[in-house]
């Protein structure tokens, strides 16, 4: 009886699927090339102002890893009109909040302000785009701060070296082979000429997207944007966009990492399709199949039934020019990484060989729908999504209709991408093992043997 009811409900859900809230926006370019996207929502008197610079760690020259992120820190140091240490205070004093982040592909700055302080937000962002000041005290301080950030987030945390190791192997020889945090040595090596060159090349209006969402008046906002940003000169240097071609890996690349961990960890990373491609959407659905919710296959089989893992997940680390489809599991006490890996592989093999049944496939679609609907609940989220969609996909309106791309994925597509990408030749595997399990100090021997 319940089954029948469910089926009926399910039919009516499909009909109700049209339920949606459109996000209206306008977009245009200033003469200097700055791309502007505006979304008006007057329900709460706040506004989010964000600037996305299309530069990330992949734009760093060899020997300057970590530079884009370090530069992000320096962009809070001020301008000829904003004293060192004042940038954050001015925003907070106006009742606002600010932050920034740097990825492999881009650097993103934002302020959320009470809406009557819109002009202040525009002024602040235009100040740093026009003439950010980088003095030697700021550089010296932020070099140390960035190192502390790396220690806090990575060096002092179990397993956290995995990103650097996995990208280092999977994208060896390309600009994705290092992570945004970079290395201490490279950060120390940065010179004044590097800063000037980086600023003049990448922090130019024609490489930036200004995205604003919130309690604004469209016309007034356009005037204010013109007032603060029009005078900033277009960049004259060529903006390098490194080409990233994933290298051949060979059979099955594996590495054992002895770390300060108690539970062995298995990290499998498969090179994936670049974000926005058809295969990318199929891989997103595949992730949901493997690890979206308690009923997902990894969770149900590996954690619940076989009790091999304390934690298991799959997540696509999608990037502009590729990325990694990462599956990771932390073995339960007394379980080996080998048996955990076998069962992870088995679930992936099932995707390649077995049909997904209709109800499970419908579940994936419903899960994707919920997360799509929920993804635009804040002004900050909307501003960021609009900018990302524009920069990465050239279509800000995907904020409204990207869901169609997900819904176009078929069961066969999921199987096809599993077969195409989730193969040993396309994979890097890391085993994280407790240091106490380490057999011999191998490297020492290599040096001493004679």
């Amino acid at each position, binding site marked *: 009886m319940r089954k029948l009811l469910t089926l009926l409900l399910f039919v009516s859900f499909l009909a109700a699927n049209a339920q949606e809230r459109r996000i209206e926006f306008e977009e245009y370019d200033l003469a200097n090339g700055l791309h502007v996207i505006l979304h008006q929502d007057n329900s709460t008197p706040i506004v989010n102002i964000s600037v996305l610079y299309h530069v990330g760690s992949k734009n760093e020259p060899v020997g300057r890893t970590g530079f884009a992120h370090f530069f992000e820190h320096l962009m809070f140091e001020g301008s000829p009109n904003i004293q060192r240490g004042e940038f954050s205070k001015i925003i*907070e004093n106006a009742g606002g909040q600010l932050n920034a982040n740097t990825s492999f592909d881009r650097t993103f700055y934002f302020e959320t302000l009470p809406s009557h302080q819109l002009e202040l937000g525009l002024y602040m962002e235009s100040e740093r785009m026009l003439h950010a000041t980088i003095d030697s005290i700021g550089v010296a301080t932020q070099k140390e701060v960035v190192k502390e950030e790396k220690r806090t987030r990575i060096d002092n945390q179990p397993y956290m070296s995995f990103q650097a190791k996995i990208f280092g192997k999977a994208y060896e020889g390309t600009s994705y082979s290092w992570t945004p945090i970079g290395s201490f040595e490279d950060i120390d090596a940065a010179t004044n000429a590097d800063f000037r060159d980086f600023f003049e090349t990448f922090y130019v209006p024609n490489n930036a997207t200004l995205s604003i969402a919130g309690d604004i008046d469209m016309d007034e906002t356009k005037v204010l944007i013109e007032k603060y940003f029009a*005078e900033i000169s277009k960049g004259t240097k060529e903006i390098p966009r490194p080409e990233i071609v994933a290298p051949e890996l060979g059979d099955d690349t594996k590495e054992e990492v002895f770390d300060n961990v108690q539970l062995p960890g298995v990290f499998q990373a498969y090179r994936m399709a670049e974000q926005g491609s058809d295969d990318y959407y199929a891989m997103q659905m595949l992730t949901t199949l493997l690890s979206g919710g308690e009923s997902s296959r990894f969770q149900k089989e590996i954690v619940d039934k076989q009790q091999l893992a304390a934690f298991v997940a799959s997540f696509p680390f999608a990037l502009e020019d590729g990325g990694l489809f990462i599956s990771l599991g932390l073995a339960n006490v007394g379980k080996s990484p080998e048996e955990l890996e076998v069962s992870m592989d088995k679930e992936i093999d099932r995707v390649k060989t077995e049909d997904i049944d209709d109800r499970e496939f419908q579940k994936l679609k419903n899960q994707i729908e919920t997360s799509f609907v929920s993804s635009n609940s804040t002004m900050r989220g909307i501003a960021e999504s609009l900018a990302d969609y524009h920069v990465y996909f050239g279509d800000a309106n995907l904020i409204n209709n990207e869901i169609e791309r997900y819904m176009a994925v078929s069961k066969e597509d999921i199987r096809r991408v599993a077969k195409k990408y989730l193969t040993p030749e396309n994979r890097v595997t890391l085993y994280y093992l407790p240091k106490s399990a380490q057999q011999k100090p191998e490297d020492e021997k290599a040096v001493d043997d004679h």
Partner: protein
Amino acid sequence: MNIKNILSIIFLFGLGCSFAQLDRSKLPEPATPRPIEIGNYETFELKNGLKVFVIENHKLPRVSYNLLIDTEPLLEGDKVGYLGMVGQMMRRGTETRTKEQIDEEVDFIGASLSGRSGGAFASGLSKYQERIMELMTDIVFNPTFPDEELEKIRKQTISGLAANKEDPGAIAGNLNQKILYGSDHPYGEIQTEETTNNITVEDIKMYHSNFFKPNISYLAIVGDVNLKEMKKLVKKYFGAWESGDVAKPTYEMPSAPEKNVVSIVNRSNSVQSTVNITYPLSLPVASEDEIKVRVMNQVFGGSSTAKLFMNLREDKAYTYGSYSSLSSDELVARFNASADVRNEVTDSAIVEIFYEMQQMRDGKISDEEMDLAKNAISGSFSRSLEQPQTVARFALNSSIYPYPDDYYRTYIQKVQAVTREDVQAMAEKYLKPQNAYINVVGKASEIEEKLKQFGELKYYDTYGNEVDPSLAKLPAGLTVESILNKYLDAIGGKEKIAELKSVRMSMEASMMGQTLNMEVSKAAPNMSRLEMKMGGNVMQKQVFDGEKGKLSGMGGESMVEGDDALDMALSSAMFEEIVYLENDIDIELSGVENINGKDAYGIEVKAPSGKSSTRYYDAETGYLVRTTNTIEGPQGAMTLSTDFGDYAAYDGYYFPTTMKQPINPQMKMDITVTEVVINAELPADHFKVE
């Protein structure tokens, strides 16, 4: 025509050039602020006492249900962790659904559902509003708590606890809890493997039946819903819930220490110290001081523009971030100032945190800092109103705590009315730089000396139990066996060692201008011979044939007998460590020592005669780096140590090539190994003892 229209016209005519005189030296003037509006909510109560709040918000087609059961914290005793399992177990089977069915049904509609000891939460698309409520109430009212599911959770939990042993944040959390509140307070209980193993299904069932009562519960509904429909649904799904009396335990108030105390958990691989300066205090929710304290904390360490951040990060670059918190609490509030700092500035960071506490108490607070703090709090309050969940939180708080009716409506005014005098008064009352716990998780060997200036040092394990200082510095999970195995692996591995039949080492040292030559040879299983020559004369000779030994030298000769012979049998083994592992030798971990700048783990060995010695193994390489013996001399007991270094490979076996050997406590001899011969041909009577 208003200003807005004029501006639009300028824009339309493309007169952007009129902005050429833009004065960038001044901050733009703000526009007229819009009044802050707090969203409305509706409320009703069921006959069984359940209070319901409905916050309609139609922006997105979503709904959430938050059921809050307002219980007092409970002591879990030797079953710490069972309260945390109540919610997990609720989701693992009801009278009509298995865990698998619940999981599938929830995921099928893209919803989320969770239980906890203090209630349950569910959310999803509003078109499934009834199914979501039905699923939530099913796990709240009809859980079956299956035994086999508890076993699964237990296993997961134990793995989670193991993982936490390496996580500096989790270790610091345990330490803070234990130090602040003690084991007899519900906030101070720490879950361990042992307490996890004590939990039974009965504990969970008992809690659920005693505490899940509507008369102490609140349901907050937020989202794209309609009040009338919700009234109907709530009655349908919560109406039959029966009320009942619920116990309200009370606890003793923990107190701040009389003077500062330093508590350390050693994490020997740490590259940063996690520092928390903390103490318990009384600051009830909705008390008079609450808003003033909020402003005081904001000035001190509440944001990335506060005193702590500006000093420790922006000025000194000790840390990625340093913050403080001081929140009200019904049972016991706490002050906490924290930072993760690199090892070498651990003490300096603590000095600066105390300095800033004192600045606050002395009223060294500028007008700018006051304005900044008040504006930041007001701004954060206004921004939070973007989320409809905020209104639900306000409704719940107003209902549970004695806040005046206009509390949230006048919140910003109250914040703005706080004066510098108020803030200084709050600092004097609540900031206690002389009565604080200084809790540090970090590499003890690098930081402990410099921490002594702040108070007595105490050492704790990762669960916050006080331990012997020398043992505290050992990494979690380290055993005698792991140290010995690492050593044996480092010098060639057990397999190769088993193949080793004999070894002969030649050594040289200079003493008082003379060259001293030594030859040590060993043959499996435990024959040994040592000869010391100076200028061609044998100064000393010592032979052991596997059973008995003999010492000879310039002063005559003597047989080694009794217990001493047993000791010599042990020291004559090719590698003593093999014997420790295979035979019944009394060995135990003695702690960690810094030897020549590197950490080494000590193992105390009690020889058959009862004499004890300690052998130290490098934490990094595994090599034996020192042995110490206590000798009874004319001036009482004294300790003599031999250091080993510069290990080198000989046919795949690793031996030290330098030794520093004591002649007496004041004098050491530098010995250099000149030759090592593996499986050397030795004369037939080489080890003969007559």
